[in-house]
């Protein structure tokens, strides 16, 4: 056998006596040069002669040996164990063993640099002794070599270990999330080393919290609890005490009305109404609540009619800072006896959880303020003070989210209060340490009718919104998140005003009545329509049975629950109602969702929040068709179906970007990375004077273009237009469309809308969110259509302003 090994070594060496480098993978091996081929032939003949002497032969060539005598050279190999070792200065010795195969030469050992000592410089096994002292941590290479092959090991020589610590030594961890623990070794010279990956990690109770070999700790179950995580390294150990953030919400909390709060978790329950909803049509917050998010650390203000600050299901979440404009006190409790809107709004945001009474707010760990602007004699001053402009009485400048469950019902185009608009701008610019307060606003309840005088028969017959969300001047501001309402079956609530100013939708419910109390069909036939018995929203009400929406004496209430007479007895105190509804309900539910998002990531700006909501909203009523009508010159699309813009965002005038999806929004918030940069706007870009007669009741309408410059090409966050009409237009006739340079169309005002008649010139200001994310530059086209016979007008000019980044 020996000669075979020698032959192998001869093959393994090139003609210069060096080992041939391995052939690169994937690279063709070159053939030998003619000179090399000649030498190989000579070598081969010598080799074959030697083999022939032993009775063997060669393969190939002119004197091939028998196949049974093919040489299969076996390479020498050398391995060393261990290949990595960590030793301490002045610490114990470490033994290294080298194994040489296919040869029997003596193994030689060398140390580079010469830090520490070896027990011997040759032999199969040696021991390494670390130095007694060292100036700094170092690594030493121990090399074993024999028969022309070698192997090496790395020895990390560290200072003497003084302690091991784990960071954090105590922490909370949420279900669905994990916490990365880090082990730090401190040496006798106070230097430190991260030994997280070298240490051993164990959990005191892996069924509660497990820990990976790399120190990543994760709740193992779906309930609360705690565990001690121990890290061990070189005889030292340290511990970290981890507690699971307790889950909240459905299935966990002891709130008797929570199972009927379908907006939180829709199981197809009725909310004490006659009819039931559809399972799953809720705000999708299960994972968020399981992780224990409840809006902690988020202060929410309701700008509303009042807030019963001593209410049993609210008091614990009411923070100092509320204000009563009526008596200039810090207690905005309403003295009305027929229901306090604000108290019900407040419960939807932050009713106390797990307290054995009532239900739960969407963000039950958030804190509440109220400024009763709505029930006061409203003024610019009170509005500015309520929207963040006041450091005291009220204290509104520390609010994170403002909920505005109100709106202006107007039949004529109006502008907003410039001071209020300045305050909105200030709020998004300066509050929350410059991240901006988040303003949430109800879209309106005027789809079928609204309180200002005037009819809605045209819109009702057509199936479009009589009141457009754009009619309220504050809905047109990019600072507001305008919210539409959804019923318990996941479609638009019957009353919810539509319009391109809507940002998202949230549950708002219907009317929540009980048919027997209506004498059969009375409610549906006369008062509320067929949705009378569909679920409304269960929330807080003024306390006691002699005031509020729930009153035992109110025989005009068609809700058994509101009469305090529901068999389960959960509203015997009349402190709750099951008939709250409106975009007044949808807005605070969205507000609560935003509080959850901000708890998950308090560093989000107000625009980040809008971006997250738009990006994660759930598309509802996906197959809703376009609304069309026949006008002169053809069929006119009076309301679009869902459209997807060129940036990939889906939008519908009834729903905005869709229903708030809490779990998706919170998940995006936790890993948020988008950079929206600085909000900019193009300023108003106006047309030259026009004189375009709008043909009466004609689908063709009139169109006009405006070019938005190519630089800067803003990524759109909102588009505002002003359309000026001359003559004596009946504004209710007109539909206004806008088409972007990318070809996306948005209807900003529906034909047969709820506006009345005015004498021109009048400028309609309208906002659309449908172009979110598209590029602003290029030609924009406005189209104005007169959808009703009579009262013709003229398009005399228009202008556009784009907000974006």
């Amino acid at each position: 056998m020996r000669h075979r090994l020698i032959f192998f070594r001869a093959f393994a060496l090139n003609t210069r006596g060096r080992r041939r480098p391995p052939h690169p993978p994937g690279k063709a091996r070159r053939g030998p040069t003619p000179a090399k081929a000649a030498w190989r032939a000579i070598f081969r003949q010598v080799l074959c002669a030697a083999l022939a002497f032993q009775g063997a032969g060669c393969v190939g060539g002119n004197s091939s040996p028998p196949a049974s005598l093919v040489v299969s050279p076996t390479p020498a190999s050398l391995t060393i164990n261990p290949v990595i070792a960590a030793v301490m200065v002045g610490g114990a010795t470490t033994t290294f063993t080298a194994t040489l195969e296919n040869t029997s030469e003596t193994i030689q050992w060398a140390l580079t640099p010469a830090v520490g000592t070896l027990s011997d410089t040759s032999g199969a096994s040696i021991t390494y002794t670390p130095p007694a002292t060292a100036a700094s941590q170092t690594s030493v290479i121990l090399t074993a070599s024999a028969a022309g092959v070698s192997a090496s090991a790395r020895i990390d020589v560290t200072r003497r270990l003084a302690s091991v610590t784990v960071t954090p030594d105590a922490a909370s961890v949420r279900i669905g999330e994990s916490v990365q623990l880090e082990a730090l070794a401190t040496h006798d010279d106070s230097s430190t080393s991260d030994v997280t990956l070298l240490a051993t990690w164990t959990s005191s109770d892996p069924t509660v919290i497990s820990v990976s070999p790399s120190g990543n700790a994760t709740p193992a179950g779906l309930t609360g609890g705690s565990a001690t995580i121990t890290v061990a390294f070189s005889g030292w150990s340290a511990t970290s005490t981890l507690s699971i953030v307790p889950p909240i919400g459905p299935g966990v909390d002891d709130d008797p009305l929570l199972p009927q709060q379908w907006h939180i978790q829709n199981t197809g329950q009725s909310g004490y109404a006659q009819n039931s909803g559809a399972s799953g049509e809720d705000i999708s917050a299960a994972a968020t609540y399981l992780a224990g998010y409840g809006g902690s650390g988020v202060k929410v203000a309701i700008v509303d009619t009042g807030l019963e600050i001593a209410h049993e299901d609210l008091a614990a979440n009411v923070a100092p800072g509320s204000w009563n404009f009526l008596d200039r006190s810090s207690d905005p409790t309403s003295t009305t006896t027929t229901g306090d809107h604000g108290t019900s709004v407040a419960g939807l945001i932050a009713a106390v959880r797990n307290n054995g009474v009532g239900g739960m707010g969407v963000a039950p760990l958030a804190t509440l303020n109220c400024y009763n602007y709505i029930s006061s004699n409203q003024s610019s001053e009170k509005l500015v003070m309520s929207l963040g402009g006041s450091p005291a009485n009220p204290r509104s400048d520390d609010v994170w989210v403002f909920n505005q469950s109100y709106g202006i019902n107007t039949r004529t185009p109006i502008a907003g209060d410039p001071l209020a608009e300045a305050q909105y701008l200030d709020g998004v610019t300066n509050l929350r340490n410059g991240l901006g307060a988040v303003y949430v606003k109800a879209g309106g309840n005027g789809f079928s009718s609204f309180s200002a005088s005037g009819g809605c028969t045209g819109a009702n017959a057509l199936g479009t919104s009589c009141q457009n969300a754009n009619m309220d001047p504050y809905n047109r501001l990019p600072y507001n998140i305008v919210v539409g309402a959804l019923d318990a079956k996941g479609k638009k609530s019957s009353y919810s005003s539509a319009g391109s100013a809507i940002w998202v939708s949230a549950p708002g419910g219907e009317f929540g009545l009980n048919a027997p109390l209506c004498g059969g069909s009375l409610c549906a036939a006369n008062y509320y329509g067929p949705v009378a018995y569909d679920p409304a929203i269960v929330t807080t009400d003024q306390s006691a049975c002699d005031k509020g929406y729930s009153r035992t004496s109110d025989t005009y209430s068609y809700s058994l629950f509101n009469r305090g007479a529901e068999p389960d007895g959960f509203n015997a105190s009349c402190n709750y109602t099951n008939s709250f509804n409106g975009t007044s309900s949808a807005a605070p539910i969205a507000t609560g969702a935003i509080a959850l998002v901000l708890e998950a990531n308090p560093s989000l700006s107000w625009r980040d929040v809008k971006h997250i909501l738009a990006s994660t909203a759930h598309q509802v009523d996906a197959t809703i068709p376009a609304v069309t009508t026949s006008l002169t010159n053809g069929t006119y699309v009076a309301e679009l179906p869902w459209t997807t813009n060129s940036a990939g965002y889906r939008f519908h005038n009834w729903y905005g970007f869709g229903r708030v999806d809490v779990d998706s929004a919170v998940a995006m918030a936790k890993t948020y990375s988008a950079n929206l940069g600085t909000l900019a706007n193009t300023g108003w870009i106006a047309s030259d004077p026009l004189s375009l007669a709008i043909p009466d009741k004609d689908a063709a309408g009139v169109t006009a273009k405006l070019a938005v410059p190519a630089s800067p090409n803003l990524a759109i966050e909102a588009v505002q237009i002003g359309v000026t009409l001359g003559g004596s237009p009946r504004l209710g006739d007109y539909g206004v469309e806008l088409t972007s340079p990318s070809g996306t169309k948005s209807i900003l005002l529906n034909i047969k809308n709820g506006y009345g008649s005015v004498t021109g010139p009048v400028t309609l200001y309208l906002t659309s969110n449908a172009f979110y994310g598209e590029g602003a530059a290029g030609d924009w086209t406005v189209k104005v259509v007169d959808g009703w016979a009579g009262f013709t007008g003229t398009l005399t000019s228009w202008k556009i302003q784009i907000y974006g980044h």
Partner: protein
Amino acid sequence: MNVITIAVSLLLLLAPALAEAQQSSPASGEQATPTSSLPKGPAFRSRGERYQVLGAVRAVSRKPDESDAGALARVSAARGARLEGKGGYVIYRDAAASPTATNEAGDGATQAVAVNAGTGALAVLTGNLNVRLAPGADPAAVARDHNLVLVSAAPRILAAFFRPASAQDLVQVAAGLSRDARVTSAEVDVIEHVAEPQ
């Protein structure tokens, strides 16, 4: 709570023909109170709209839980004098009222009323003056120099809100403020459009 919507729905269901007529006709603004025959006082601009103070009309602020009739009785006005509600105010006929932009003080206080020259809608003068100040201006000094009470200020938006210290014509006071170099703009505060619960 959508109570108002419910009420309007009932009205429309009971009188569809009326509703059709309202939609189809060139109906004007939000209210039908005739004002053309009322005496007119000074004109002013506020929130981009043009107003004119009315005579023979005043407004009274309701107290919490006070009915319209109760508020009217408090100012010795007949129940039938009511023209319309405007948020927390009741606007009523008062033949003796002169067309001045002067608000009263005290339990029987009444407010001046103006008409929007564009829409014909009524608006109540809240008694406040909405002022935008020049940067660095001291609102307290402005108040002192114009015999005003500083109601509150929002320094970041350079806004200050004043009331006359005594019964003064608000339009004239606003005009005086507008001539002050420390003031960027001064407007009489009105409430024409009321924010309502949705």
